[in-house]
């Protein structure tokens, strides 16, 4: 395969051939992470590194603990009283799971996008303004600038700039999801967690959101859960395959996305991606 002069900075093709799309610098270092709900272990001893500026896709059958894994990374599991998380997640030389972690600050640095778009029942502008105010940005002018920038970044500005004061719930599903992404990136996080961000959207909106996610690569470290293997192949640099044995989720294989899909090392992975299982 020859390099085209105007090819985007990151393509999957380059991973195999030249240098990796991004330096494999661990941004999050996860060691022996286990999640229990009450007595039921749903995720057992997961260890992997999430690389800076890359998109890591989490794939695997329903119920294998992908959402649980994701919510330990920004401590959303704290809100579930019967959830117990053990192991360590190193981020910036600190263990996220330590009790003294400032959760509100952590969530500013690690944003999250949900499966169902969840803009607040407020105006478009207020949706973006609330998190800014909450994180101490007092100047109205600065907020306005940041709001415009975030909306431009997600390609929503020209669609909504004339109705910033109308309800965000009046937007289409795809627009709502892009607004949620704007709401997350307006806080300038380093990492974005996305839990099946396209699965509630129609194919066209889904494609637009997917393009947006690809454009985030390099600027943000993205971890995306998806059931759509083709999508994982299209967007991700790295992929992690989770599987469930006796209701306990395990990480089976982790590697560069194309390698994982082309030459899976584990037979479960091979069976899952060929559609034979899961």
């Amino acid at each position, binding site marked *: 395969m020859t390099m085209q002069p105007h090819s985007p900075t990151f393509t999957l093709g380059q991973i195999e051939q030249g240098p990796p799309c991004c330096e494999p610098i661990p941004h999050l270092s996860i060691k022996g992470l286990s999640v229990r709900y009450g007595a039921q272990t749903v995720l057992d001893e997961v260890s992997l590194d999430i690389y800076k500026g890359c998109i890591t896709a989490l794939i695997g059958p329903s119920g294998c603990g992908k959402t649980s894994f994701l919510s330990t990374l*920004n401590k*959303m599991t704290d*809100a579930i*009283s019967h959830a117990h998380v053990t192991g360590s997640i190193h981020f910036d030389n600190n263990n996220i799971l330590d009790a003294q972690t400032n*959760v*509100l*600050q*952590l*969530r*500013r640095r690690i*944003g*999250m996008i*949900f499966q*169902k778009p*969840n*803009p*607040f*029942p*407020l*105006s478009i*502008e*207020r949706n973006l*303004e*609330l*998190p800014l105010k*909450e*994180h101490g940005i007092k100047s*109205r002018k600065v907020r306005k600038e940041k709001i415009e920038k975030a909306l431009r970044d997600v390609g929503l500005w020209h669609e909504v700039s004339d109705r910033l*004061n*109308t*309800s965000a719930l009046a937007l289409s599903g795809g627009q709502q999801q892009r607004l*949620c992404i704007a*709401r*997350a990136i307006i*806080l300038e996080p380093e990492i974005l967690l996305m839990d099946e961000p396209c699965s509630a959207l129609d194919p066209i909106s889904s494609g637009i959101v997917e393009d947006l996610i690809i454009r985030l690569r390099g600027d943000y470290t993205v971890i995306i859960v998806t059931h759509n293997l083709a999508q994982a192949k299209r967007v991700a640099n790295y992929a992690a395959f989770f599987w469930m044995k006796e209701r306990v989720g395990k990480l089976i294989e982790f590697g560069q996305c194309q390698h994982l899909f082309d030459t899976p090392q584990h037979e479960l992975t091979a069976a899952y991606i060929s559609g034979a299982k899961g």
Partner: protein
Amino acid sequence: MPSRSASNIRLADQCFSVLIMACAAFVTITLIWVLGDIVIKGASHITWSFITSEPSDAGRSGGIGTILVSTLLILCVALGAAIPIGLGVAVWLSEFTVQHSRFSNTVGTTLDVLAGIPSIVYGLFGNAFFSLYLGLGFSILSGGLTLACMILPIFIRTCESGLSAVNNDWRKGAQALGMSRSAAIWHVLLPAAAPAIIAGLILGIGRATAETAALIFTSGYVDRMPGSLLDSGRALAVHIYDLSMNVTGGDNAAYASAFVLITLIILLNTTAQSLIDRWFSQRIYAS
């Protein structure tokens, strides 16, 4: 036979529809009758001086000016106490206690029982607690606080169920953005629950404005202009009760007062609704 059973079903259907329509008609006619009675017998006595002047001759003549003032003061005290306490308790119940735990179920049942207690019992309680124990005597303050106790259970319940019905995705969204719990409640959940809060408030205003029994022993009968919240003041509903039960020849004034009372309730509800609507839409849309 299929055709026969089909016609039987049709007959049953028709009977049922007729029954339902009869019920609906009964309710509507009763309402129109009561309202019509009051409007016909009351509206003709309404004059500006009736609304503004003091009652005289035990209410047979004169007006209801001082009574309107007392009524509004009592209502202000009641709402001023009930709204912050009610919202606080509702937020605490829906956001800070475990849903469906034994504790929250107990509190819920208690509130339901309290909401069903006859208002005269609240009156006796208010008399014993606010008037005598706290030494507030027969006053607008004790009357208003008694009314607050009376409307609190139902107000808390409506607000609480409104808050619990708020989409959980918004809670998670606020959490994931690193918003504090109080900010999420104040900026997202309460505006989202606004319709339920308005409904609870309208119920409360309706009950409080129309209340007689709870006020007789707490805010009293005095029909002079109250000088302060510690003065006794006669509420409109108490006035109507007094005119129709104790004052011979007070019927005209009673009808006129009832007409004013109904107008007042309608007016208060629409103002409350539009005020809150505006307040919340400011929170929703303004930047």
